[in-house]
């Protein structure tokens, strides 16, 4: 069991190393190595999943490499196998396999073809490192490596100026979050000098008692640690204050947006909180904070998506708002629901991005939806795939998106968190709006692109490699919900890896009863009503252009400016930083310390010595005068003292 997971974990790494060494080999060799390594990982995780559920042993944790073993602390790299980890790894590997396969054709005419696959393999390895981490240090290392691979992949086209700016910003914002994570990690190591999950889980109630003084006020240690760890998650999963890097990270190639910025990396934060759910259960106040952060992100970022016109940026904002849903679920300690939404979201969001990718390739890298139009006739398969994915995104009944999103909204409503419930309800409306905006504009509207741009004949839509993943992805993004909803709710799926199962049970018995009844019941709820209104509204507004609403200028600019985050991040901070640092360097470092102290002392000594020089006139009588006056002075001195 452990050996298999070890192989699973290391196969992408071996793939990366192999690709690294045969860099300038032929294209198909790279395709071969990269896809096989991910395929092995995928098959292994499926097999392990099956093995785990058949034998269902408890969580297994084993260390395979000692990081540092001294008298003061002992840190290791290890593997932690339980249902949560295996499900997450199968999701990650499956999406990554499909994206690898998809990007063979997407990147085929790119010069640095091999480099792309090195980075994606490396990304999958570091993601698995997080998934299978059995201690906080390995979690942090995987966390940063994922940040590094997203930095490399966003800035993949090194010549593209905006891509370099984007990856610089992305990495720094992730680093802001990582400070929280690092401080949490250090606090744990300091107070319990072990970072191992098991040991921490065992002594978790004793942690609750000690206190930590942060900036003077004393906090309960556990809630301080969990809050700090959540700050790291906020940056990685793009929650409200630290979310402005995700839309810019669309500069990278579309497959990586699908892989990293939709399915896997951004969900690392959610996974971490879910993994540490036993700890989060004991904190006070942190969960409420998470709940409100999640719901605010869900609602407000959804609004911003309405005013965007770049297809990838709209999907990026929708990812942020869906992540808001998941965080809200975590906040309401509905961990398995959050994980369920994470899984379904991974599939249908990856599908959305891949469709967007094929659209972009078709229209020769044109991403502005106002220009593209009427692709229904030319790209039937992408059209169908896109439709299913957006239905699932909206949460249309029967689709898996419906099961995960609706259950989160109803559960939060059921447990009486009123304001977040309202926010999530309203964001259903915004989600339907912007998804149908893309849908109608791209597939039904008229295109303004010059004719030969959009080669007419539908036959060569795109080659097989791009369309096969779309087919494969539509299945889980639509039917997965039905398939795993009941086992999830009864708590078999994430057996003893997530806390607070009894909450889900009570919701299940009290509200849902079973998946089919939940489906029927949903037609009568408000959610479906809002959904319908949204659909009709967008049908009339986008497709028929029946009426036009002039959104007041003030709202439009705030939204485009992403509530000021956009201008903050791309102009304000760099400019302030430049001026401030230049000032610091010029004023303090150079003028005060360097010139002020050092050069001044040297010049002081210089002119002091030049004054002394005047004394040596060269004339004897001056010297004799000096001698005599000194003699007189000494005599007087002797007389006075003697």
């Amino acid at each position, binding site marked *: 069991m452990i050996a298999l997971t070890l192989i699973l974990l290391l196969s992408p790494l071996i793939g990366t190393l192999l690709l690294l060494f045969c860099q300038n080999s032929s294209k198909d060799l790279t395709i071969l190595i990269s896809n096989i390594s991910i395929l092995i990982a995928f098959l292994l995780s499926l097999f392990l999943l099956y093995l785990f559920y058949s034998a269902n042993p408890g969580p297994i944790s084993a260390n395979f*490499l*000692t*990081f*540092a*073993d*001294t*008298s*003061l*602390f002992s840190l290791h790299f290890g593997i932690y196998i339980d249902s949560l980890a295996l499900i997450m790894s199968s999701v990650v590997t499956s999406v990554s396999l499909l994206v690898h396969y998809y990007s063979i054709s997407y990147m085929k005419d790119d010069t*640095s073809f091999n480099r792309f696959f090195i980075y994606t393999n490396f990304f999958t390895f570091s993601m698995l490192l997080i998934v299978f981490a059995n201690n906080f*240090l390995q979690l*942090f*290392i995987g966390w*940063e*490596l994922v940040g*590094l691979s997203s*930095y*490399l992949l966003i*800035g993949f086209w*090194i*010549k593209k*100026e905006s891509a*370099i*700016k984007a990856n*610089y910003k992305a*990495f*720094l914002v992730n*680093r*802001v979050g*990582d*400070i929280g994570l*690092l*401080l949490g*990690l*250090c*606090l744990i*190591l*300091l107070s319990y*000098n072990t970072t191992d999950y098991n040991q921490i889980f065992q002594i978790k109630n004793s942690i609750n008692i000690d206190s*930590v*003084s*942060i*900036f003077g006020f004393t906090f309960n240690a556990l809630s301080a640690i969990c809050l700090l760890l959540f700050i790291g998650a906020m940056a990685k999963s793009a929650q409200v204050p630290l979310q402005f890097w995700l839309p810019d990270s669309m500069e990278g190639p579309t497959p990586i947006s699908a892989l990293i910025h939709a399915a896997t990396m951004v969900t690392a934060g959610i996974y971490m909180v879910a993994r540490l759910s036993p700890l989060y259960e004991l904190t006070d106040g942190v969960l409420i904070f998470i709940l409100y952060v999640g719901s605010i992100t869900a609602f407000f970022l959804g609004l911003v998506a309405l005013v965007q016109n770049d297809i990838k940026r709209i999907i990026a904002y929708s990812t942020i708002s869906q992540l808001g849903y998941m965080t809200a679920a975590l906040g309401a300690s509905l961990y398995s629901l959050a994980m369920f939404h994470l899984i379904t979201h991974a599939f249908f969001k990856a599908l959305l991005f891949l469709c967007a990718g094929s659209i972009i390739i078709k229209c020769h890298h044109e991403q502005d939806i106002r220009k593209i139009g009427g692709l229904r006739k030319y790209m039937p398969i992408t059209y169908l795939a896109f439709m299913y994915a957006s239905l699932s995104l909206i949460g249309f009944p029967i689709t898996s998106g419906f099961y995960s999103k609706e259950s989160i909204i109803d559960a939060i409503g059921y447990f009486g968190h009123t304001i977040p419930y309202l926010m999530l309800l309203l964001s259903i409306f915004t989600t339907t709006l912007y998804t149908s905006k893309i849908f109608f504009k791209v597939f039904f509207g008229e295109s303004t692109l010059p004719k030969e741009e959009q080669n007419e004949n539908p036959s060569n839509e795109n080659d097989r490699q791009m369309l096969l993943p779309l087919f494969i992805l539509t299945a889980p993004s639509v039917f997965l919900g039905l398939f795993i909803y009941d086992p999830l709710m009864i708590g078999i799926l994430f057996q003893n890896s997530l806390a607070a199962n009894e909450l889900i049970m009570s919701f299940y018995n009290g509200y849902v009863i079973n998946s089919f009844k939940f489906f029927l019941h949903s037609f009568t709820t408000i959610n479906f009503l809002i959904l319908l209104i949204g659909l009709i509204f967008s049908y009339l507004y986008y497709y028929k252009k029946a009426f036009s609403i002039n959104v007041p200028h003030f709202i439009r600019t705030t939204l485009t400016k992403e509530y000021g985050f956009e201008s903050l991040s791309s102009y304000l901070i760099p400019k302030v*930083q*430049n001026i*401030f*640092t*230049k000032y*610091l*360097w*010029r004023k*303090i*470092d150079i003028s005060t*310390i*360097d010139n002020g*102290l*050092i050069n001044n002392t040297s010049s002081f000594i210089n002119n002091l010595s030049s004054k002394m020089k005047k004394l040596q006139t060269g004339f004897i009588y001056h010297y004799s005068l000096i001698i005599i006056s000194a003699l007189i002075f000494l005599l007087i001195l002797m007389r006075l003292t003697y």
Partner: protein
Amino acid sequence: MFDYPILSTLIWLPIFVGLILVASNDIGKSLSTTITLLTTLIILIISIKLFQSYDHSVGNLQFIEKFVWISGLNIFYYLAVDGISVSLVLLTSFINFLIAIYASSEDYNNKSSYLGYFLILEGLLMGTFSAFDSILFYIFFESLLIPLFLIIGIWGGENRKYATIKFFLYTFFGSVLMLISIIYLANLADSFAIEDFYYLTLSFEEEIFLLLAFLIGFGIKVPMWPVHTWLPDAHVEAPTSGSVILASVLLKVGGYGMIRFLLPITTEAGIYLSDYMIYLSLIAIIYISFVAFAQEDMKKLIAYSSVAHMGFVTMGIFLVFNLMGNNPTAAAIGLEGAMVQMISHGLISAALFFCIGIMYKHSHSRLIKDNFGVAQFMPIFSFMMVFFLMANSGLPGTSGFVGEFLVITSSLGSSFLFGFLAALSLILSASYSLKLGKNVLFGDNQKNSQGYLECKSNEKIVLGSLVIFVLYLGISPDVLFNLLDKSVSDIISSISLGRA
């Protein structure tokens, strides 16, 4: 267990060969490079043998060589080595070996004396790390300046005169104070051996003065915040290998001196002043990172970044004072973190200076705006440079992270504010290193006016071996930890013994 005195050979062999090289100026470039390569290789092998035969479990002074030197003042030629010195000796020999490889492709006028000075410098560095008699330590500590002064002075950049004189006088001023305190201590303990100083009972005022004297003496060497302005100038003017050896090993002498002298002797004063000193190193970390961000000159940027990283080292050391009272394990973590940070910063800053040297060789300009779009023409080189920039900003999985991680853990022990401010360096170091990477490596460069072409084989070897070591120390720094573990706990116990 050794028939021949290993430490003395480590010191005097390179000095001897160096002198020959300097003296015989007419031997050709190729011959002098082979000689240097050979000697540095031998030294590397000896120090690896030293490392293997140094048994970590005991951890006290080993390979002791003690002969009477000046019987009148009972000064001894006293060489010995403990965990900390072994790691630094290894670092020196490794870096010098890399310099020899790198320098083989360089061509400087009268290159044999250029390489000769490096060998002398290597020998003196070995001496500083293994001297256990304070006067011997002081002599080696002082004589370090001379070869470097010549290297920067003769083969340096444009206004090298200003830089070298400033560098020389600055460190000289520091060490004068140090000499006074050594003599003061010596006539108290009427012996110059360092461990005799440990058991002296000093009054509080004495300790305060000694602390300040040692602090200034070593603070200038480790450029601590207010006295750091000599480093950027020295780096900008030094030739590539000169600034490599300066950044990677010479700064560690200051840190090593602090651990050897400051910690065990002036404990009471240290505890009393520890808050101010931690504020100093915090300023060094945060303020200097801001200043590093504003640089236009690549070398200056890396020089300021090494000041910031050395801020972590000093912080680790002063935390020991702060935490001695209530939490000795955190103090030990801090000190171990400082030690690891020294070694890892030595490797990373050496690598970064090598990269800048390679780029300078093609574009002949150190300014950031003159170098752009390097990645298009030098893919392997820019891969390694991105790796080192990442290591410089403390990416876990590289050795840069380990040191900072431990120092932040122990700083959280004393107060959350210290930990938070130290952790801030995570963003700041990332911001300036990646800014360098962004402006220099990426971006579009059609006509390749700077004439970048892929780096030669020996440069690849140099950078490759540094990548391997930084990764190895990042993934499993266990080998370093059990080397340092015993010596660090000895120092902590000798401090608590001193205080009790």
